[in-house]
């Protein structure tokens, strides 16, 4: 089937299998490979992207469901080479190690701060419950989210 999806601001028209997941569409059809797959059960959030500005797990959305909508991945976050405030905060606070969860974690954070611009630490921890990281113990991720909020992301 044919889908029309605006990916990182650029409208595209693609032919996809009906059962194709959005994450595979992004990785393989669009060549945007930052978004990772970490599980098969919508648990880990490595595949988190923004769909019409709201964070979704792209392993649980069909490409067909994104037809007519707008998708943003971490590749589309920086503007003119300048890091988005959330990316900058993850950098400054060392909020990543192996980097595998990072694109999803950053997009989940963007989504979180849109809904709640000034979360408490507890709210950050609760809100990111669906995004797994095995390296950082979440310590610096939480700091990065709070710093990004402070910076007005």
């Amino acid at each position, binding site marked *: 089937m044919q889908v029309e999806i605006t990916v990182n601001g650029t409208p595209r028209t693609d032919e996809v299998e009906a059962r194709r997941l959005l994450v595979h569409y992004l990785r393989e059809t669009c060549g945007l490979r930052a978004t990772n797959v970490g599980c*098969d*059960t919508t648990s880990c959030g490595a595949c988190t992207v923004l769909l019409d500005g709201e964070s979704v797990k792209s392993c649980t959305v069909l490409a067909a469901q994104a037809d007519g909508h707008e998708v943003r991945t971490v590749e589309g976050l920086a503007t003119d080479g300048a890091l988005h405030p959330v990316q900058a905060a993850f950098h400054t606070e060392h909020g*990543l190690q*192996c*980097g595998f969860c990072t694109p999803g974690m950053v997009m989940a954070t963007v989504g979180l701060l849109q809904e709640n611009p000034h979360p408490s630490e507890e709210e950050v921890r609760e809100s990111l419950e669906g995004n797994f990281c095995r390296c950082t113990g979440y*310590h610096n991720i939480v700091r990065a989210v709070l710093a990004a909020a402070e910076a007005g992301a």
Partner: protein
Amino acid sequence: AFLTRGGIYTDDVLDDSLVGAVHVSFIRSPIAHARIESIDASAAREAPGCVAIFTADDIALRPVRPMLPSIDAGFSRPLLAADRVRFVGEPVAIVVTELAYQAEDVAELVEIEYDPLPAVVDPRASARDENLLFPELGTNIACVFAPKEPDERLFEDCEVVVSREIVNQRVAPAPMETRAAAAVWGADGRLTTWLPNQGAQGTKAALCAMLGVDAADVRVITPDVGGAFGAKFGADPEHALVAWVAQRLGRPARWSENRYDNLLAMTHGRAQIQTVTIGGSRDGDVQAYRLDVLQDCGAYPAIGALLPTLTRMMAPGTYAIDRVESSARCVVTTTTPIGAYRGAGRPEATAAIERAIDLFAAEIGQDPAGVRRRNLLPAFDVPHENGHGALYDSGAYQDALDLVLDAAGYADLRAEQAARRARGDVRVLGIGLASYVEITGGGAESGAPHENALVEVHADGTATILTGTSPHGQGHATAWAMLASDELGIPVERITVQHGDTDLIPEGGGTGGSRSLQQGGAAVRQASRELIDLARQRAADLLEANPDDLRIDLERAAITVEGSPHIAVGLAELAARERLFVRAVFNAPGPTFPFGAHLAVVEVDTETGKATLLRVVTVDDAGVILNPLLADGQRHGGIAQGATQALLEEMVYDDDGNPMTATFADYPFPSAAELPTFELVSMQTPTSYNSLGAKGVGEAGTIGATPAVQNAVVDAVAHLGVRHIDMPTTSRRIWQAINDAGGQA
């Protein structure tokens, strides 16, 4: 780049040579233990997209021998199960399709008939040898370690002796990136393979052994690696089979497993049943300690059989105990093979002794901090022989304990605990301690503790470092560049660090066992210093000066004449005349022994049994710290994994050997919501074993936090008569323990 375009992990690698790659997947045994009666792939071969189906009959590769030479070769693991399967998840057939999406459809058409055999899940049952995994061997016991002459009077003069069984449960390393591989054979007959690993050189050796090919014919390239935690050392059968498929079909091949396969078939960690016996005087002197380990190796004894040797070596921990004995038996069970997981054998030793100390303290009714202080080894800087084959290089265990108690406000915490108990609060407080010493840099995959580095300065003023370590989140690119920059005066941002390509870097021990900075970093410093010596020699000719009068001017990255700074030649200029590089090998005199103390505070709801982790305060002395941000990051990750082994994580099998926790919906992978912000206290006692004074820090967190958190949970309900709760200390277990103890719940 991680933040803007993402890392390039194995599944992201795009290379011209991989265009048109076939997709490899594995059909895995759905049964824990069975004979394979028949495999019929005829319908599958006709299915759309099917390129090939392979079974053990197609493959003439040798099984993988157990790592320990003393283990019978009969315990070897076939790359594909031949006539018997021994765990759920064992690869039985290879499905090769044109596209990934076709694989599951094709796999469904492969008909495999199994004749079930009894599962052997509990290592205690395995050790009874009633149901054998390898009938021709006549036993499930792969190896036994025991003192030549056990001391039957070990506890003879002890006023108090406490003994109990402790389970150090099986957990899944669960790196966020699962296993994967891409492989292609060139026209020259050489294999190039990309796969996530912890050391390309060791991975290459493992692949060569499995494939039966010469080292010269294999190139391993390490892309970005999405976490490893010990489970990506070497290579697994699947990695070799992907290369084999590529060779057999004459086409590039790729494999990327899903999480289900990862939790089934990547090695698990820990899996020890320990019996601890501790004895001493009623006033608190520990006089004797005995640790008997029953190690579950899973279906095939690989690294699992090595873990108890490390556990035994570290058995006495940080304590001065007159008499210590240990033994271990390693058995096979019809479960996923056990491998290395962050700490690998040492967290198990610390968990045992730290639980034992608390059991002893509870028995004599003394404060666990006091019992520890009374029995800790005094500070030393002359290496201390621990009586079990470990030579502790330096230590100040009492200082570490005092620091953590102060930082946490121990007296106040005890007062708060007492107040809550006195008030009859439903939510009680528990305070747990652990003192630890661990072994790091104990030897690379390639043998004794050493590592190489090559440092080269280029004519454009940049520099390149080639390292034999293999970072996957530890930050070597930053840290190694800092080390070279300090010697060469070249800014960090102009230094590139490369790793993980066996053609470029043939030697290397990889990253694991907390070895990288103390060996790989030390090698970078050594190579940088030798490069300056070389530059001074060359500059001496050029400047017509005595090399002894020349020094490096770090401001300018130039060699200058002492006292005449206007006479100078830049390192870049020297490099323009002739390649300027040094390859150095750093040899460590031995492993180092970082130490520390952790304190955990938990709150337990006595009505529901739910434990909430409130605080973790840690002192982790890893010698001199090069980069606090990176070192603390290592501590954070380790603390989280240790704390959640204590609280949540367990790979569970039912009695028939079916894994019950093989997805992230079932395996209690920790999220941010289950953890607090950690409180790190700095302590740095240098080691003399390397020029950096550095010890390892990568595994400290799991080693200290696991028993500290477990002890805190037990402590929370100790007043109700509870002495021990096995990990993971789930609500159900805590609630059960309170009820069993007869306390009010």
